[in-house]
């Protein structure tokens, strides 16, 4: 999907029915599995439908041939009709079972794949894109949005299929009895369908508002839970309660608006049915008097009209649900449409040369989309196996180095090269195994310490993990844990202290054994003893590798082979710590003086 069509679709209002069809078409194109055996499923649905008209036909036959015959009811005819119809019902019921089962298998299989693909795609999106979305909304792309589609396909989809089939079959039987009466029925339902369509469009918009208000409500609830300490400490329970009430009530009002429109829609269908019944009786009697219609046929027609109401009503309700489902489908497609702006060159890409890596920034500038430049024309070379610290004040652009070097983002201009290979040409498989970054928050998964470290290399045994901890000088720390490697770290690692989480994150980077290590140093304070332990571990992890550390603590800079000082997006100084200190007025000297003041 090209960028142009993406923009086009976003510009068109979401309730536009053209875009509904477009979404459906694209959704089906995305899941070819949905079409597997579709013909068979449709055939089964059609047979299943015959079951619904079987009874009216039986009633007609029974009345005309068995009941209103001269000499009183003919029980043999009735028995024959009933037995035949029962046999038909057995067949159609079986077909109903088979159809539903097929539909579930096909739709669940297809949408499980969509879920998985969307999940993978979110991971493939660039970091910038991932961060620009609320995390919760990304999660709902692969959960509730897909749920909505499956629920629609199974609940609504079966009904829609069945009911459309019923409409077709009913119409066919009606035509067979009398084309004039069929016209009456269509004349009654035609305008209703038009009104219903208009209402549906409004309903789609109303449900959009409901969903949006639900998002606001969830955010408000989230704040009241996560912000519990702040709310108490500042005595602002009243303010919070007001905000919650506002969110709760506005969501309720939106729901009520939506259901009003929905009820209006089904009422229109009901009235149309009444009109149709009345019309059929009037015209039917006239036709009966003319001798073109029997009592049984007219009676069957009255039954058939009720078979017409139900599908129209159900189809209305299903189409309401369809609005939700299609909105969900569109959101899933929107995610899949976003081409990863930092893409894996894949097969055309190159592998990084073996051995230690050197780094070159050639005329690199970077600006966030729609933002000011944060890096200006940076030229930089880092020799293999050297340990470099990047320092600078908050907002100086130092973290941008780490993101460019690990290709979490691409430079706006210029190029980053690793051992002479432009980063954009490096296959991700090669890049991610050779270049590893330890992000600031040292995110851990809700698993054990061992599983978190093994995340980098699943094949490692427990013994190898213990050996790794030992090499990092963390054997005693590991022994101090309640269950060693098997100690659970809790959600986001919160059962460990901030410093301990960093230790695990470093061990994870260590076993990944990269040739270039990029560290975004944690800013959260840990107590000095843990800090020293971290420094030691860092030293062990970085030994013998090219390392670029975004240093927030100048002790890291002090230990580095070289320090790069960034100020307002430019490199203003570089060299070993001692050299940089020679000019007491330099940016680095000032930073260092302030830092010393803080720690000594």
């Amino acid at each position, binding site marked *: 999907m090209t960028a142009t069509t993406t923009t086009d679709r976003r510009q068109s209002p979401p309730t536009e029915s053209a875009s509904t069809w477009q979404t459906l078409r694209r959704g089906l194109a995305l899941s070819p599995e949905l079409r597997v055996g579709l013909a068979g499923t449709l055939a089964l649905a059609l047979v299943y439908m015959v079951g619904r008209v*079987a*009874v009216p036909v*039986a009633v007609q036959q*029974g009345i005309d041939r068995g009941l209103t015959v001269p000499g009183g009811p003919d*029980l043999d005819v*009735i*028995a024959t009709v009933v037995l035949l*119809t029962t046999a038909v*019902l057995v067949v*159609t*019921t079986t077909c109903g079972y088979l159809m539903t089962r097929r539909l*579930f298998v096909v739709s*669940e*299989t297809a*949408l*499980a794949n969509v*879920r*998985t693909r969307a999940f993978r795609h979110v*991971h493939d999106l660039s*970091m910038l894109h*991932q961060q620009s979305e609320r*995390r919760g909304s990304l999660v709902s792309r692969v959960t509730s949005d897909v*749920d909505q589609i499956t629920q629609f396909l199974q609940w609504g989809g*079966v009904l829609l299929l069945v009911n459309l089939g019923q409409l077709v079959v009913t119409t066919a039987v009606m035509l067979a009895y009398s084309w004039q009466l069929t016209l009456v029925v269509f004349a009654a339902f035609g305008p209703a369908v038009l009104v219903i369509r208009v209402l549906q469009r409004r309903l789609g918009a109303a449900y959009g508002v409901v969903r949006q208000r639900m998002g606001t409500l969830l955010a408000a*609830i*989230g704040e009241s*839970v996560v912000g519990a*300490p*702040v709310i108490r400490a500042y005595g602002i*329970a009243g303010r919070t*309660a007001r905000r919650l009430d506002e969110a709760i009530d506005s*969501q309720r009002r939106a729901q009520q608006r939506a*259901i*009003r429109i*929905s009820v209006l829609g*089904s009422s229109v269908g*009901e009235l149309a049915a*009444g*009109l149709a*019944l*009345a019309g059929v009786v009037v015209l039917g*009697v006239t036709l009966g*008097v003319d001798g073109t219609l029997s*009592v049984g046929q007219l009676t069957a027609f009255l039954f058939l009209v009720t078979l017409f109401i*139900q599908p129209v009503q159900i189809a209305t309700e299903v189409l309401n649900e369809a609005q939700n489902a299609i909105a969900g489908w569109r959101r899933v497609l929107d995610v899949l449409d976003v081409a990863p702006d930092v893409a894996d060159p894949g097969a055309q890409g190159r592998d990084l040369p073996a051995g230690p890596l050197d780094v070159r920034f050639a005329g690199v500038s970077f600006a966030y989309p729609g933002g000011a430049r944060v890096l200006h024309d940076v030229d930089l070379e880092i020799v293999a196996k050297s340990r470099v610290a990047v320092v600078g004040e908050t907002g100086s652009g130092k973290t941008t180095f780490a993101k460019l070097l690990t290709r979490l983002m691409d430079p706006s201009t210029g190029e980053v090269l690793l051992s002479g290979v432009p980063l954009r040409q490096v296959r991700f498989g090669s890049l*991610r195994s050779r270049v590893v970054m330890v992000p600031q928050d040292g995110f851990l998964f809700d698993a054990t310490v061992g599983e978190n470290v093994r*995340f*980098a290399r699943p094949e490692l045994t427990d013994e190898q993990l213990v050996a790794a901890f030992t090499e990092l000088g963390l054997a*005693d720390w590991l022994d*101090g844990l309640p269950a060693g490697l098997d100690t659970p770290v809790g*959600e986001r690692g919160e059962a*460990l202290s901030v410093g301990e989480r960093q230790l695990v994150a470093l061990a994870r980077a260590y076993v990944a054994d990269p040739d270039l290590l990029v560290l975004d140093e944690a800013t*959260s*304070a840990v*107590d*000095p*003893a843990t*800090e020293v332990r971290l420094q030691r571990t860092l030293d*062990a992890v970085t030994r013998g590798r090219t390392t670029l550390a975004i240093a927030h603590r100048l002790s890291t800079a002090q230990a580095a082979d070289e320090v790069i000082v960034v100020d307002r997006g430019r490199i203003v100084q570089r060299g070993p710590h001692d050299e940089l200190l020679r000019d007491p007025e330099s940016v680095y000297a000032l930073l260092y003086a*302030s830092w010393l003041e803080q720690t000594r």
Partner: protein
Amino acid sequence: MLRRGLSVLGLAIREQPRIFAVAVAGSVVFGVMVIASAYVVGAVVGDVVVPAIARGSVAVGALALAAAALFGLSVLRVVGIFGRRLGAGFMQFRLQAAYRRRVTRRYLDLPLSWHQRNATGTLLSNANSDVEAAWHPIAPLPFAVGTLVMLVGAIISLFVTDWALALVGLAVFPALFTLNVVYSRRMAPRQQRAQRLRAEVSGIAHESFDGALVVKTMGREAQETARFAARTGQLRDALISVGRLRGLFDPLLETLPSLGTLAVLVVGAVRLRQGAITVTELVSVAFLFTVLAFPVRAIGWVLAELPRSVAGWERVRRVLDATGEMPYGDVTLDPADPRPATLGFADVHFAYEPAEAHLPGTQVLGEVTFTVPAGRTVALVGPTGAGKSTIASLAVRLVDARSGTVTLDGVDVRRLTAGSLAGTVALVAQVPFVFDDTVRANIALDRPGIGDEEVWAALRLAEADGFVAALPDGLDTMVGERGASLSGGQRQRLTLARALAGRPRLLVLDDATSAVDPRVEAAILAGLRSGDPDTPATSILVVAYRRATIALADEVIYLEQGRVVARGTHPELLATVPGYADLVTAYEQAEAEGEQAGGPGGPPRPYEPVIPLNSGLDVEVDR
């Protein structure tokens, strides 16, 4: 399950009796009209159509009446639908809103210790999906009740018509009902399993996207996708098993009334032959079976939702019934008093409430006694897990001591009103929390007397005026969910400004400047200590790691494992307390050692680790 489910429904009806009455009335009107329409159709066929065709002429009056009756019935049905669906919908939405209010009120009322025992995700779904699940059966409930009335009416009308046809009804309707019940029973556990798997799939996605940076930088996208795909596969299988059951029951539920109609045809023919009934009656009864099939499903819908409803309701009730509010007292400290407050801890013990009643709680603090005299700065120093954050929480009464007292200006904090407490003390937590609102609202928090001028003054003091002024809309800039558009240091300075804006008489800083650049931090601390007339006079209790921060304190309290080990000035403690000296000079020691050993990291370690490295529990209060 059925009994508990019905009691939840009963509760809903007691909560919203009027609107429920409207909905049921609508539903009954609808049901009666459905039965009536069957008899009208029968009458039209038997008394209008048959004679007309037999006579070969149309009785215009009778025909017009028949048409009017058919249309009139559908108008009444529409009235019924309006009452039923709007009533049911409004009832459901009102209940949801009412219970969301109640649940979130409990969240605001319950003490922090209760919040700490419950996972964030659980609390979110209690207020959201559990409330929704609890009241989900409300939507089809009036329809189901109306259908029950309709069924009874149908049976009665059958008996009035003919006992033999009534017997067919007595066989078919109860069978239909039973089939629905069996269906719901068998469906419930499958639905629950699917629901559980849905939650797990969502959990994996949440965690994986949360850790997206790690996944990306380690190149583990494929593994993560496999982990997600495995659970998604289980969900798919669970849903397919739901589908099989539906495939079995849905067609059966539809066929049963059809078989009933056929039975009516046979029995009716016999009775017609005997002269017991007329064609009119036969057609009416046959029609009745056709139109009743669909509404009977509503009963099944309600029954199918009940287990989910009960589960949701029980989780909601757990919140509503949770006890342990922290009642506030009625003493108010003079709000006009500009002098700094005195904080006193006297023999304070604190333990976390155990996860299960029979287990002992984790003892966090014992025999803690100290004072922060008015206008002085006291630093709390100690290794991780020593209980520093707990002391900070006790000082602002986020939690209560198990024994001992915490006093402000000599008054037990438990005797103070909520307003007085919040007006006197301010806590800046380790992890800054900002609301998804403007910068101004985040700082002022609608507290009286905090206008733009005060906001800017607080921002200046927190060294945050610079970046706020540079934001696109200044004070009106929305900071995003959890302050996503700001850096960690900016968030910390914003929360510091929030505390300062209230001109607290006691400021508690729980390592509140850790993400702020050292130079900026120095400027902030200098500002707080400057004593110039613009700066509010305040006592400060600060949890500190950086030596410069500690050095600013008039007194240092050194904690180890929840006990005050030593107190005094920084130089005194440095000279007399080895643990303290080890902790605050760890850098220098590591450096010295590095020089000796020719590189950092070499053995031996000159410091004894004083940290109880991991108790398996995160004992810091503010996460």
